[in-house]
């Protein structure tokens, strides 16, 4: 049986998709229920959660899929650096940092003939 066969596709998504993700969410609720919101343990959990998300961010920037796979690394890192400068210089507003980064990337892609 392959994933195209009707009900099996839904069972596949439910087991390999839903169960495989919600198990971790439930374990998170059980762990989080035991943490006081001013404890050192919560501070550690917060650090681990942030570092995990940061690692995902770095991978998306350094090893993108799709169109950006063919774009040069210097362009992606340059766009992030210019966006970060605008973010810190102009009042730390997320919208400014995001818009500057994307505009730089778009200009670079256009210039490279994408």
């Amino acid at each position, binding site marked *: 049986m392959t*994933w195209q066969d009707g009900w099996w*596709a839904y069972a*596949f*998504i439910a*087991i*390999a*998709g839903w*169960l*495989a*993700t*919600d*198990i*971790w*969410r*439930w374990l*998170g*609720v059980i*762990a*989080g*229920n035991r*943490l006081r*919101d001013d404890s050192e343990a*919560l*501070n*550690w*959990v*917060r*650090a*681990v*959660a*942030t*570092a*995990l*998300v*940061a*690692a*995902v*961010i*770095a*991978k*998306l*920037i*350094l090893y*993108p899929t*799709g*169109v*950006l796979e063919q774009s040069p690394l210097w362009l*992606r890192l340059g766009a992030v650096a210019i*966006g970060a400068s605008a*973010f810190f210089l102009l009042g*730390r*507003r*997320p919208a400014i940092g*995001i818009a500057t*980064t*994307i505009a730089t*990337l*778009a200009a670079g*892609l256009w210039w490279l003939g*994408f």
Partner: protein
Amino acid sequence: MKSDENGQSSAVWFLSGMRGLFSLPAFILMLSFVGFCSLTAQAGIPPEQVVFMTGMVWALPAKVILVSSMMSGASLAAAFFAVSLSSVRLMPMVAALIPELRTSKTPTWLLLFLSHFVAITAWVFAMEKVQAVPRDKRVAFFAGFGITLVVANMVLVGVVYHFVADFPPIVAGCLFFLTPIYFLASIWHSARHPVVYIALIVGLVAGPLFYWLVPEFDILLAGVGGGTLAWATERLWRRRREIGA
């Protein structure tokens, strides 16, 4: 009488959470889902299954891995393992959010139900916004935002699937890049604890480093190793400052 007032204002906070649909993070996430739609359309997965997947799995990175497992004809066990591994990060994220949301009276079943709506965008949004919400209304606020965001994206996926022609490459590239940049800017902007800044920087370096060293477990090791290093560093600084003061 008092409980009536509370009931009413919980509904108000639920609605206020729903309005989070018209925010920058929700908008960026929807653009990412448009990108996901074109990926699944190219993979030949029928739209009903894509809508089902959006509601059941919700976390976008997990769905991308699920789709690539389905496409490569992986066995159920292999797909389960790959998706589980990518989703371990949900556990510390939920564990960090729960103490911000609950009160001593919040039932655990409700938190278990609401945890389904946690993925990176909802987590970043909730960690930032719940500070301004009275503690006993935070669950209602998060429910309003989380449930609305999932339902809206299920509808979006169902509709957009039929229209995704190939995007011009510049648009597709910019859509992809929005997600990491939004996460980066909003985590920095919303950090209320010094340890978050350190963990963000350490994680950005540790991610690629562990990908290079042990690609199978990179995210997990970068999180636990990098997070622990960030926590220990911040704790050391805090201690020094306390002694110095």
